[in-house]
């Protein structure tokens, strides 16, 4: 029989947990500050002014006395470390520290895309085509100022763009349908051709091309070399596997009898495919974690435990 903990026990546990965390954070803080003041590399970005900009200082620069601690970038390293730990703190439990990091990420990345789009597309590719002289006079001095042939056609994406922005106003939101329709239409057109050529027709051609020629097989066998036969057997396995998978995907007919057996073979092939995909995915994820930990260890804490 289980008993429900009394509410004040839960409260006590939470208070205790908060106090433990506070103590842990305090201790870690003291350790970090001690290390910061004793180890000159920790949490500091050493830069050298080469005369054409700041670069990371090497050990030689430090010995030569031309390196200095760049305050902006050093603060940046600390902020990065705190952001990294903030995100990792979510693994323990959702907490305000993580939420602050998340809020910062959302705000900064949204602004980043806006600025990116403004300076890489709207200015050079829209205003630069419609009003090249004006754009050249302040934003892109290298832009040719002569209007292109049919330059006036660029008023179409300008108008469509303004209509797209009308989505922000409920009263005029219906205007956004036209540019959205254009985007959907062009995407559909682009994708149709791309997938037809590369993913449909291209794959059929690749499968056929993977078969070795009869002449090369005979020649290889005559030389006592069975690699071409191996290639042939692999090609046959590929064809059979592809057909089996396609039978499995065909849900318009009932998977019974022989169709069921072939479909099951298809499932087996797909399972091996997904297993391979999983293996590669794991590798990818671990590498992402490795680079963040490397940053914390080498760039922030300047830990350099010798080994390996």
């Amino acid at each position, binding site marked *: 029989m289980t008993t429900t903990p009394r509410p004040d026990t839960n409260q006590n546990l939470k208070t205790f947990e908060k106090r433990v965390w506070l103590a842990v954070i305090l201790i870690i803080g003291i350790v970090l500050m001690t290390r910061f003041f004793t180890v000159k590399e920790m949490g500091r970005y050493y830069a050298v002014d080469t005369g054409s900009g700041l670069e990371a200082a090497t050990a030689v620069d430090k010995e030569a006395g031309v390196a200095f601690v760049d305050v902006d970038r050093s603060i940046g390293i600390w902020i990065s470390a705190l952001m990294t730990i903030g995100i990792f703190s979510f693994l323990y439990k959702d907490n305000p520290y993580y939420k602050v990091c998340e809020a910062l990420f959302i705000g900064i990345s949204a602004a980043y*895309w806006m600025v990116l789009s403004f300076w*890489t597309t709207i200015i050079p590719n829209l205003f630069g085509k419609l009003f090249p002289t004006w754009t050249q006079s302040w934003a892109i001095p290298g832009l040719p100022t002569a209007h292109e042939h049919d330059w006036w056609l660029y008023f179409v994406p300008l108008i469509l763009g303004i209509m797209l922005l009308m989505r922000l106003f409920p009263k005029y939101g219906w205007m956004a349908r036209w540019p959205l329709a254009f985007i959907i239409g062009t995407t559909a057109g*682009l994708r149709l051709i791309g997938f037809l050529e590369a*993913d449909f027709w291209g794959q059929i051609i690749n499968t056929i091309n993977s078969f070795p020629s009869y002449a090369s097989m005979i020649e290889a066998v005559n030389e006592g070399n069975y690699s071409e036969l191996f290639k042939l057997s692999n090609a046959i396995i590929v064809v059979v596997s592809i057909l089996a998978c396609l039978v499995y995907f065909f849900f318009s007919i009932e998977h019974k009898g022989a169709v069921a057996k072939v479909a099951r073979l298809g499932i087996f092939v797909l399972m091996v495919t997904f297993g391979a995909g999983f293996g590669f*995915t*794991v590798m990818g994820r671990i590498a992402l974690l490795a680079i963040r930990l490397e940053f914390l260890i080498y760039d922030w804490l300047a830990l350099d435990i010798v080994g390996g």
Partner: protein
Amino acid sequence: MIDFLDKLDRRWIFLAMGLSVLIPILMKLQFPETATAQSQAVFEEIEKLKEGDPVLMAWDWDPASAGELEPMAKSFVLHCASKKLKMYFLAIYPLGNQMADNDIADVIKVDFPDLKYGEDYVNLGYKPGYEGVIKVIVNNLRELYPTDSRGTNLDQIPMCRNVNSVQDMKLIINVSSGYPGIKEWVQYASTPYKHKFKLVGGCTGVQASLMYPYIPQQLAGQLGAIKGAAEYESLVTEKYDPDSKREIYKEGRRRMGPQLIAHMLMIGLIILGNIVYFAQRSRGAA
């Protein structure tokens, strides 16, 4: 024990994963890497090029995948700069432009200071439009790129004067972390123009297994995840920079140390999870 494992708080698993990556990093665990056929194919494709050949460096990745892609990106730049190829950087992935700037600063400016911007390498920058960008620039580069990322008119950049489209390139090297990326370059560049140029690429683990159907006809070779990066890195540094002390050319191999331990952990967790499952199943049956 079985009950304990069954009710195990996942945060202990998180801790185990964290330690399995942290400890090899602290110990700088590293293992020898031998190149597999794919990495060799990518290496050979670039080796075939001659000094002065134009290469499009399509940098379609961001910091989120730097763990896997940064080592291969730097190795690509090292390889191309060592062979004195003409490098044209561009991006159709939003932060790729920034990654290209970083690689230019870390590799070309430090180890190849004689290479000149505008004569040996150029950064054309990023354009939004996903595969739409590829569709345009395979026929007409200047329609979307009237200037480089610094705002200089392409006609004033010596290495861009005679380049009208991507078809003027001998090879496309794509480093890709998602969409748009290597798949789009296959679909809209190397498939329709297979006789004009070849495409090689490096991609994340998530994408790597999905790109095999394109090899070798549409994609001459690919570097899959950090393993591919480590193999290619060892091929390039062995030939072009064997005595280098620079850590940036050893990142791929360095990151393989944690891979081994973490993979062992993954296998152990799967086996353990299944032991718990089977034990509970037999308990339930009993």
